């Protein structure tokens, strides 16, 4: 037998995300997403051959290697359980590891699940490494990324309000997504623009929230896809790329690992002109300015031109390339799950199952995640039709 087994997404589920899901335990949270994914696929726990769990640092919930404790909740007794942790990109990596299991024909049907219950701790301090691991200069991810946003603005001469446009667009999109954490009805551009400055130039309304939430996918082979009650999303390409955190010559604005990762995904999927051939993208944008930055890094816009695409309205729902129609990380951020939600939302789009935030006729969609010091990348491209060749 030669070649890889084609891989399809036949079930998608996520929790209602919120600042604190005090109504559920950790097992309750992950089961909520997993059950929705199984129900979507019209499968039962017994149909799952293996479970891949992803989440960001264990300190966020205070449970070391929680896949051990959660094995029961995910029906994994007697099954293989793999726990992935690649920093913020982990949700995407979780989907890709599950994809590999099916593509290699090691397993037929795999449940990929990622979660974070941030209300169990304080993520900002959880992300701030203590002395002696890091100088005591940074507080949270914003402190790390704000200088790189400033470098982008200086490099491209982008006008100051681009970030505001992104934040307003994503929060408006979230109103169409019943699972989104933030539903800020009536939010105006002026309100975003006048929200408190946190890490110059990033304002309060331009940052992601801290969320409790989980997301789950059911991935399966060709035979499984043929039994799917709803249209599957097919994996056309997927890749991970990593580079060191700090080194002389590192480009924090447009990391090479991101560019290389996208190039590999496009190669696998046969994409030569991403802006024209990809219908929508769910990008990991935790701070508003990362939308134009990633548009350039991923080849949707020429270097220095990403902000123009955003300013033109092309990335809005109804635009030429809707970005984050779900509301994105700016509206929902259970950290370890945020990447998987991007991958899941891309799959929802090409299945035509995205409801009120559906991009009409979406046939190819990109899911993107990144993590660490803009150094870990995972992406996939999904399509409404099976991959050719």
């Amino acid at each position: 037998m030669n070649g890889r087994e084609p891989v399809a997404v036949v079930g998608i589920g996520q929790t209602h995300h919120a600042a604190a899901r005090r109504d559920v335990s950790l097992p309750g949270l992950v089961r909520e997403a997993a059950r929705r994914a199984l129900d979507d696929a019209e499968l039962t726990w017994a149909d799952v051959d293996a479970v891949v769990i992803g989440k960001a640092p264990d300190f966020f919930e205070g449970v070391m290697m929680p896949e051990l404790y959660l094995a029961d909740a995910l029906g994994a007794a007697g099954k293989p359980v793999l726990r992935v942790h690649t920093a913020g990109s982990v949700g995407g990596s979780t989907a890709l590891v599950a994809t590999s299991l099916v593509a290699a024909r090691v397993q037929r049907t795999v449940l990929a699940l990622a979660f974070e219950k941030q209300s169990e701790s304080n993520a900002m301090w959880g992300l701030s490494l203590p002395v002696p691991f890091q100088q005591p200069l940074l507080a949270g991810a914003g402190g790390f990324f704000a200088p790189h946003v400033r470098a982008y603005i200086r490099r491209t001469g982008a006008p100051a309000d681009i970030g505001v446009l992104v934040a307003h667009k994503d929060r408006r999109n979230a109103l169409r997504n019943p699972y989104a954490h933030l539903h800020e009805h009536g939010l105006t551009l002026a309100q975003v623009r006048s929200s408190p400055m946190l890490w110059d130039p990033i304002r309060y309304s331009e940052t992601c929230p801290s969320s409790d939430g989980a997301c789950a996918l059911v991935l399966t082979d060709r035979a499984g896809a043929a039994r799917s009650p709803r249209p599957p999303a097919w994996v056309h390409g997927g890749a991970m790329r990593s580079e060191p955190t700090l080194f002389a010559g590192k480009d924090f604005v447009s990391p090479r690992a991101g560019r290389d990762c996208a190039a590999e995904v496009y190669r696998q999927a046969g994409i030569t002109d991403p802006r024209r051939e990809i219908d929508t993208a769910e990008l990991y944008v935790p701070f508003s300015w990362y939308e134009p930055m990633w548009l350039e890094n991923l080849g949707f816009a020429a270097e220095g031109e990403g902000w123009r695409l955003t300013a033109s309205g092309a990335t809005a729902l109804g635009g030429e390339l809707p970005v984050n129609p779900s509301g994105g990380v700016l509206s929902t951020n259970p950290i370890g799950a945020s990447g998987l939600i991007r991958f899941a939302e891309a799959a929802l789009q090409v299945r035509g199952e995205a409801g009120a935030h559906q991009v009409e006729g979406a046939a190819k969609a990109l899911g993107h995640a990144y993590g660490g010091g803009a150094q870990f990348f995972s992406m996939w491209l999904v399509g409404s039709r099976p991959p050719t060749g």
Partner: protein
Amino acid sequence: MTRPGRPGPPGAREIAIVAFAQTRHRRATPELSEPEMLLPVLREALDQAGLRPGEAGFTCSGSSDYLAGRPFSFTMALDTVGAWPPVAESHVEMDGAWALYEAWVKLLTGEADTALVYAHGTSSSGELRDVLTRQLDPYCTAPLWPDPVALAALQAQALIDAGETDEAALARIAVRSRAAAATNPYAQLRGPVPAGDYVVRPLRTGDCPPVGDGAAAVVLAAGDDARRRCARPAWIRGMDHRAEPHALGVRDLTDSVSTRLAAERAGAFDAPADTAELHAPFTSQEVVLRKALRLADGVAVNPSGGPLAANPVMAAGLIRLGEAAARIHRGESGRALAHATSGPCLQQNLVAVLEGPEREERP
């Protein structure tokens, strides 16, 4: 290579462990950062395989933030890999044995022909017995802080009560392991160790693993690539892992159904093995694993000394795979089982079947 009736992906690529390196494991390594600990080990494994840093088609590692006491502890380790230009890379928050599993799957897809797998653990950063209690059910069990020795003691007592072993037999496992480690320059405890006092009855000091820091690295390669890189590749004939329920009360602690299931799926029972490297940190757990794996008396169990001689948490499982492969590389084994475990009282288990060239008949 296809074997009719053997579980696993049909027509799968041949994949082998072609290199293995490890640190000289020690009680504490305060003078070393994690990258400093890893760098020599990675270099040694890559040199054995004839790979330059960053040249492997895939890289995967295993470690735990809870051991390091900081989030994202694996990110700095990337500095040792040579991840520039950027590399295809992943990480599991598990023992490195599961990183090897992820890399094996990656090679099976055909996306890569070689993989670097590594793991490290600095148990000395905190009180290991306290730290590992944080693995337990956070609502009902972890608040009681039952440590791994106490839980293993429950298991040992269950075995004794069931007539499966006794304290003298456990002591003989300890003596045999440390005696075997006398010829292993990487082991932390080498040669005779007194049985000592009870730590938690019925387990004595001698029944427990040493607490220590260490790292290990393995290189995987596929097909002819493996043959070029290693005179006697250790072919992975099968590999599988299975979990059991977390709560001890719903498991039979005298048995390991997940080990047996993983072994079946890996093809371990298709032919007798001459060697078994078992990730049994406590003497009593070797009793459970021997039964689950149906090991005959003649099988060399933990000729390296096993985890009773060196147990760098997060790397100790990967070291079992590496030690079993190294026996094949040296021509000391034709067919070896390697086992890794995770969680309290053997909750999750991985079994790999490794074979040398003698048994290999290419179609």
